[in-house]
């Protein structure tokens, strides 16, 4: 096996760009796509002009309007985004079937062996960007590297309309300078933990031994250890199998009443059970998502030893996780329950595919 060639393509301010493309009146202006402040909407996407005011996605539109009173609010039009997304996806598939979409506007591609037999992944990324623009009038930023981790970080390097390549010989220098928060798998909580250990950059991370990291972070320790050394073997996985199943609900009124919170969570757990049964899956990781009235969102997860599917069992762990939140003290506007860590389906693992 030689070195892999991975591209991460990320559309620039996707929803907002689609809206600006379709309405000349929005071009060059701060635009946000999302629900209205009255319906307690959040920013699903914002144009680069809006970002200058400090607006970012997932912020409440109410706050965005305060930051920039002249901001133009557009209701999301998912049919349009899906259309653009499917055109883009088609372009990706002209090169390879190893496409792993992360959302409508973002995907990994493994172009090591591609249909066009082009050797340079950079050349492919350039071609794809050109084709995307020609067919959708939208720009994308590309990251090219030998692994998913670096390709993804590279795509965010020069936005918009960027193309950043991280070659294996530059990888270690590149990683050394990265802030620890940008490492795959480092969320807010882990980031804080890292900071406490004086790990602020990739270089700091590399100074720790495997043993130390495993002590601090359990199983993820090894992952961080290897990432710091530019080793990421994770494969680009086309989305055959759903990786998580979850349900969430935005409450019509912010609540602090614990009985009510527990009841809603219990109901969500049973909804998740139904979805799991429909897909014949059992999971090992249970995640609770809580969004407070101030839009601050946290997740708390637990990974257990056995596979579970039953709503009552999920609920038991969710209630434990609930104790690790500020529920009851802070008003809550959204609750979510999800499951990950599905056992690989034995029946499909060895199932061979037709060689189209």
């Amino acid at each position, binding site marked *: 096996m030689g070195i892999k060639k991975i591209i991460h393509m990320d559309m620039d301010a996707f929803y907002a760009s689609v809206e600006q493309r379709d309405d000349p009146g929005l071009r060059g202006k701060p635009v946000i796509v999302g629900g209205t402040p009255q319906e307690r909407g959040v920013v699903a996407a914002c144009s680069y002009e809006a970002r200058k005011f400090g607006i970012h996605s997932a912020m409440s539109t109410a706050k965005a309007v305060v930051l920039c009173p002249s901001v133009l609010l557009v209701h999301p039009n998912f049919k349009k985004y899906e259309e653009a997304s*499917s055109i883009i996806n088609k372009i990706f598939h002209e090169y390879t079937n190893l496409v792993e979409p992360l959302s409508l506007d973002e995907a990994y591609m493994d172009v090591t062996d591609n249909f066009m037999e082009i050797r340079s992944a950079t050349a492919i990324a350039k071609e794809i960007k050109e084709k995307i623009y020609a067919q959708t009038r939208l720009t994308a930023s590309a990251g090219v590297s030998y692994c998913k981790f670096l390709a993804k970080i590279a795509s965010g390097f020069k936005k918009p309309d960027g193309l950043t390549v991280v070659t294996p010989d530059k990888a270690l220098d590149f990683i050394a300078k990265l802030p620890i928060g940008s490492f795959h798998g480092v969320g807010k909580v882990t980031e804080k933990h890292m900071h406490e250990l004086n790990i602020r950059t990739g270089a700091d991370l590399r100074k720790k031994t495997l043993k130390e990291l495993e002590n601090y972070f359990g199983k993820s320790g090894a992952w961080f250890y290897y990432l710091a050394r530019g080793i990421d073997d994770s494969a680009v996985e086309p989305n055959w199998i759903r990786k998580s199943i979850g349900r969430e609900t935005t409450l019509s009124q912010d609540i602090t009443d614990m009985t009510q919170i527990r009841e809603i969570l219990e109901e969500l757990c049973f909804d998740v059970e139904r979805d799991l049964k429909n897909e*014949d899956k059992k999971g090992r990781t249970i995640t609770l998502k809580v969004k407070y009235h101030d839009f601050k969102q946290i997740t708390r997860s637990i990974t257990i030893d056995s596979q579970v599917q039953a709503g009552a069992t999920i609920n038991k762990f969710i209630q434990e996780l609930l104790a690790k939140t500020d529920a009851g003290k802070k008003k809550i506007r959204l609750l979510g329950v999800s499951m990950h860590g599905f056992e690989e389906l034995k029946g499909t693992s060895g199932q061979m595919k*037709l060689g*189209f």
Partner: protein
Amino acid sequence: MKLKTKRTEILDSLQIAQYFISTGSTLPLLSNILFEADNDFLYLSATDMDISVRIKCKVDKIEQPGKTTIPKKIIALIKEFTDDDIKIETDKNDNTKVQCKKASYKINGLPAEDFPVLQLDEKKLESIKMSQKLLKEIISKIYYAALKDTTKRNLNGVFFKFEGNKIEAVATDAHRLAYYKADMKTGVKSKFDYIIPLKTINEIVKVLSDDDTKEIIINFYDKVIEFQLENMEIVSRIIDENYPNYNQVIPKEFHMEAFVNKEEFASAIRRAATITSDKSKIVIIKLDKNKLVINAQAQDEGEAFEEIDIKYDGEPIEVSYNAAYIMDVLKVIESDTIEIKLISSMNPGIIKGKGNDDFLYIVMPIRK
């Protein structure tokens, strides 16, 4: 619009329309049925924007032509009426009164003008007339093999190719592939190939007749396809993608060939499958001199052993398959004897009815 109808007359048409109503649409209008009455007939239309239907419905009397859209709850309502005579009357605000005996209901509708119609391209490319029974036969033999989700859009449909008076149809989920070819009485001048969404296929198969004398007209357009039946028209978008080159995965030469009684094989597989775990329905099939052995094992759950007499004089071979894929095809093969053709335990195998080359089923093994 004002009309009188027999409950049964309109209910049949409404229930067909119901198949086509969009589920979970954000557009309220798409949950409605379009009613259009001219002097002779009532036409009912429903759509989810990918597929639409227009049904011609004979009613007792149209007292006043007109049109409106009515929410789908009218179907449930009419179903529950016990008397056969129903009156439907719509006012200028699209509120519809439905009366039956002494019961009277008002359902608030929406204007017909806004109801979306699936646009037929300006130019019809060509048409073909074929037997409904044949189309139903083709679809029923293969459509279960299509990919059920949209992870690969081009596989989430059934592929049709019309050339001269030949029709070829294929469905695959990349693990198995079902292929059917047939001759039609009439043909097309040019060549057409379409991937028709599985959703459309699922609806079409419900309305096709088994009567050999009934025909269907298929109209080919660039981006849509239209099916005309006696009393309804169905328009569907096509999946505008390339279909995989299926010919290259249909093996032409084999090393082993066995003849097996279909019923014996099917019931043995069904029994063995009960032992397999829910997720991995792995059955191991062994061919040896004039016998076929089926083994299945589920860890800590049990084991299955079946042996049946067959006609086979090739090399011994052992191949693992997903039992569900085998059961699927055995349900649709009509011949009493099936042929199993294999190359090796790692190559695609073929299952088909003996002496019938029009229908082929190609299935990939499970790697050991």
